[in-house]
């Protein structure tokens, strides 16, 4: 009876020890899930790109509408027909409510040594702890430094640095928002500090 007890205890101990060892191994060897925090202006080095969030500008609704009206591109809502059922899906924000526009200016350098194709808004994005934001294609395509672009898919030559402007429109900005670049083993965040300014 005593021997049986000892065997049971030994089995339990061995199982616990192997589980514990496995957990330590997984946490050491597997792709890291640690979040790295950076500041605006810092350069994030990845395997393929060197990304720098050069500047961030936040426009209030009225300020943004004045700015857009001063350009010739027109407001996003006006570009859709009144009976366009997909307009809400395309816009992803309610233009009748209060909203903010976040303009991010990025410097993206291709350090992979070969020509690369990157999709703006997929390479990195603006998110919150509880918010996944989609880049606004309408304004992003029309407000690039070089003028209107046809596609958000960008080709970057080896060693080339490109300046991108990405626009995000959001109705609720109660949350802290951050610029996020996620890749296997890397979660890089830059707080946008919208509430502090």
């Amino acid at each position, binding site marked *: 009876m005593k021997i049986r007890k000892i065997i049971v205890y030994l089995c339990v101990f061995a199982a616990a020890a192997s589980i514990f060892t496995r*957990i330590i191994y*997984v*946490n050491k*060897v*597997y*792709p890291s899930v640690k979040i790295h925090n950076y500041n605006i202006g810092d350069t994030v080095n990845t395997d393929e790109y060197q990304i720098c969030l050069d500047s961030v500008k936040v426009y209030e609704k009225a300020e943004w509408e004045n700015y857009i009206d001063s350009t010739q591109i027109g407001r996003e809502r006006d570009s859709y027909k009144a009976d366009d059922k997909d307009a809400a899906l395309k816009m992803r924000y309610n233009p009748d409510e209060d909203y903010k526009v976040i303009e991010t200016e990025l410097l993206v350098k291709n350090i992979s040594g070969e020509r690369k194709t990157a999709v703006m808004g997929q390479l990195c994005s603006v998110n919150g702890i*509880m*918010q996944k934001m989609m880049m606004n294609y309408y304004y992003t395509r029309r407000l690039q430094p070089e003028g209107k672009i046809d596609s958000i898919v960008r080709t970057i030559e080896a060693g080339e640095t490109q300046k991108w402007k990405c626009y995000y429109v959001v109705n609720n900005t109660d949350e802290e928002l951050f610029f996020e670049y996620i890749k296997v083993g890397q*979660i890089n965040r830059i707080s946008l500090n919208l509430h502090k300014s």
Partner: protein
Amino acid sequence: MKEIFKIECMRAFRNKKFLLMALAGCLIALLDLVGTSWLGGAIDLAQCAEKIEPGYTNVFESNAVVTSLYFWMPNHGDVSKYYYVYKVLIPVMAAIPYGSSYVEDKRSGLINQLILRCKNKKDYYITKFIVTFINGGTIAAIPIVASLIISMCVAPWGIPVYSVSFYSVGKRAVFAELFYKHPELYVIIYIIYVFILFGLLNCLCLTVGFFEENKYAVILVPFLVYYGSSFIMKYLFGSTASLMTTSGMMLLYKDIAVYVAVQIFIVFVVDLLFFMKIKKDVI
């Protein structure tokens, strides 16, 4: 009180039924990973760990980074048939080891001997209540803890990232922000919530023991209340407010939390009726 508590704990936790239910719970947790598509994700991650090198980008064919909470059973929700089985059967599983012990004590006359060991009658009932609560809560919490340990064996611990859309904790869920900021606290609260919910449901067996002496009927009572609340709540407020749906805290939404709290409170009050009937009991 100490002596009777010891005896009752031995009866509740050192019996074959408890061991069997605990193992069944662990099996459900294991099958949730091994028997579903999540195993594929775990293998993919393991391959990624071996191949990780500059330029390697694919985990689940995306750039996402997963934590062990992705593989945690409650995160799968009803998509996982094993989690659904857990959710449906757990009140019965929790009641099997010890839920009917009061009825059995009464039928066998053991209750008299046990009460004689106590200084007063109340001690026996209080002990019975506490041990039934702990036993039910433990059986319910074991698969959740086992699943967490299993998931920690296949993926590293870390802070979940909302934007990768891998986690079922949405904006509406209670403690959602805690999940994405301090997941360890969220997990502790989750386990405590499951423990309390099923502990209280298990104590219904005691109250029902006054009216019903069939132990099988007594064991089924927590399940009937739990499952019955699904129908009532679905009719009144929509299915999301039922105890069964919200037994997974990830689906406990802020706007319906009050209804769930009221249901748990009602269960607690019904549990307390066990003490109201002490004077009327057989002895």
